[in-house]
């Protein structure tokens, strides 16, 4: 836990320590699109088997930051990253890291549900299959769907199209698809923003269930969601890390005035 205080608003740039071992460590990360910085000099750790939420107003760079964690930004033209992100001590952007292998271990759930236009079963089984999974796929599909709390709703229609599911079910299918790879880390980019409140609460319950086995990093617009679901919170504004700390502390006694204004809904 950090005990730093800042007289003024600004980036927390010194190293922040947490009680748990960290699985990812961001050090002075700056990400630019065509030379224009979207994330500036951000440093914070991500604790293993905990939920870390990244919050902040629209356009603050939180999605960009999340996508840097499994190198999905590689597909965007003209992106550059400075600083280091280390994953279990290894530089994520090092020469000997293959982004394809990396994404197998750091999964992602996107803002809009994006199931493949194939059957429910194929959606879950495809990832393991192309990565050379050798055990029976049926068991894995069932296990993943159970984990994503979707099994009971789809067990009789596994070979129907995934597009026949509702939005909330599709998003849980996308979570099952990511879980089928047994990733170390699950990145979630506003996974509930396209969903209704009931589907949202389904997914939040799911987060609690998954926490014991997975490390989750979630970007969210929803303050209540961050407060309810996460252990640690990082608050970004205009690409800068304003505050990072235990969620409880951030939402009750924030150290930065800006954080207080944001979490209480005075702006953003």
């Amino acid at each position, binding site marked *: 836990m950090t005990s730093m205080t800042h007289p003024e608003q600004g980036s927390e740039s010194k190293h922040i320590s947490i009680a748990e071992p960290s699985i990812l460590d961001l050090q002075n990360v700056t990400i630019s699109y065509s030379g224009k910085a979207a994330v500036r000099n951000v440093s914070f750790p991500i604790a293993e088997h905990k939920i870390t939420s990244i919050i902040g107003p629209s356009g603050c760079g939180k999605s960009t930051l999340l996508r840097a964690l499994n190198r999905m930004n590689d597909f965007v033209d003209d992106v550059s990253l400075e600083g280091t992100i280390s994953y279990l001590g290894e530089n994520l952007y090092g020469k000997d890291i293959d982004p394809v292998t990396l994404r197998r271990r750091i*999964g992602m759930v996107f803002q809009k549900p994006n199931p493949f236009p194939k059957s429910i079963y194929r959606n879950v089984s495809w990832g393991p299959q192309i990565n050379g999974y050798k055990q029976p796929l049926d068991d894995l599909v069932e296990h993943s769907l159970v984990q994503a709390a979707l099994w009971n709703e789809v067990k009789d229609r596994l070979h129907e199209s995934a597009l026949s599911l509702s939005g909330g079910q599709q998003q849980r299918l996308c979570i099952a698809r990511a879980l089928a790879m047994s990733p170390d880390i699950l990145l979630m980019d506003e996974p509930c923003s396209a969903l209704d409140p009931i589907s949202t609460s389904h997914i939040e319950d799911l987060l609690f269930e998954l926490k014991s086995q997975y490390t989750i990093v979630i970007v969210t617009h929803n303050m209540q969601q961050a407060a309810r679901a996460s252990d640690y919170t990082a608050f970004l504004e205009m690409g800068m890390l304003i505050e990072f700390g235990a969620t409880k502390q951030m939402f009750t006694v924030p150290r930065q005035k800006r954080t207080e204004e944001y979490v209480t809904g005075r702006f953003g």
Partner: protein
Amino acid sequence: MQKSRVSGTPYIDNLVARRRKARLFRTLCAGVTWLGVVLLGLLLYQAGVDGIKWLDWQFLSSFPSRFPEKSGIKSALFGTLWLIALIAIISIPISVATALYLQEFSSKGRISRLIELNISNLAGVPSIVYGIIGLAIFVRGFQLERSLISGALTMSLLISPVIIIASREAIKSVPVNIRHAAYALGATRWQTSWSHVLPAAFPGILTGVILALSRAIGETAPLIMIGALTYVAFLPAGPMDAFTALPIQIFNWVSRPQQEFHELAAAAIIVLLAVLLVMNAAAIYIRHKSEQKLK
């Protein structure tokens, strides 16, 4: 400018004149659309009236002859079917692979822009020019002679740009979030393309392929250029054999003075259109099936 809330807005809406213009434009568009349909109908009617009485089993199963009543299109029909099959086998894999490479794999630099520009230009090159290329390269250069394979290769050159352009458009329109979903599971570009991008782009690619093949089976100039025969009294047994095709047979008959041969040409046109129609129907059926699967 006035500030009254109902009538005094600073707009002159002139709605009557605007609506009149819209009606005029609509009528004009409908007019030219129907003009095309009517002309096509007349053409079909003329061919039907002239040709239908010649259209029987004898016509389909006989070789050409100098006696109109003994004459038929057996060799031309088989030549056309051979050509379609060979062109499809040659041009589809090459064109789709090219489109996939340009759209998914190549870096979007100056060289790939140059290639793109050239492909668009190639699609507009007159077919006779491809005939000359075919004659120089395939017939003479590769010593393939006046064979089916020479014709098919020449035609493949002709239609590949069209398939490439259509396939690129189809691939481009596959939503990017499908690709991201695959990449996020640790898929390579190839796995993503093969399992998700190509199946989703398939209906669009098929449309392009059918349009291109339809163009190919109607083309006469390149085949005449590479020296496809006009009188063939045998069936080609393999791709290295000499051949004739429906458009050539039609061209040949039309250029004869006797009225009977002109009517035979009309009958052959009906057969050619029927082949086209069957191909298009098959494509629509396959596309419909694959779209059902994607839903």
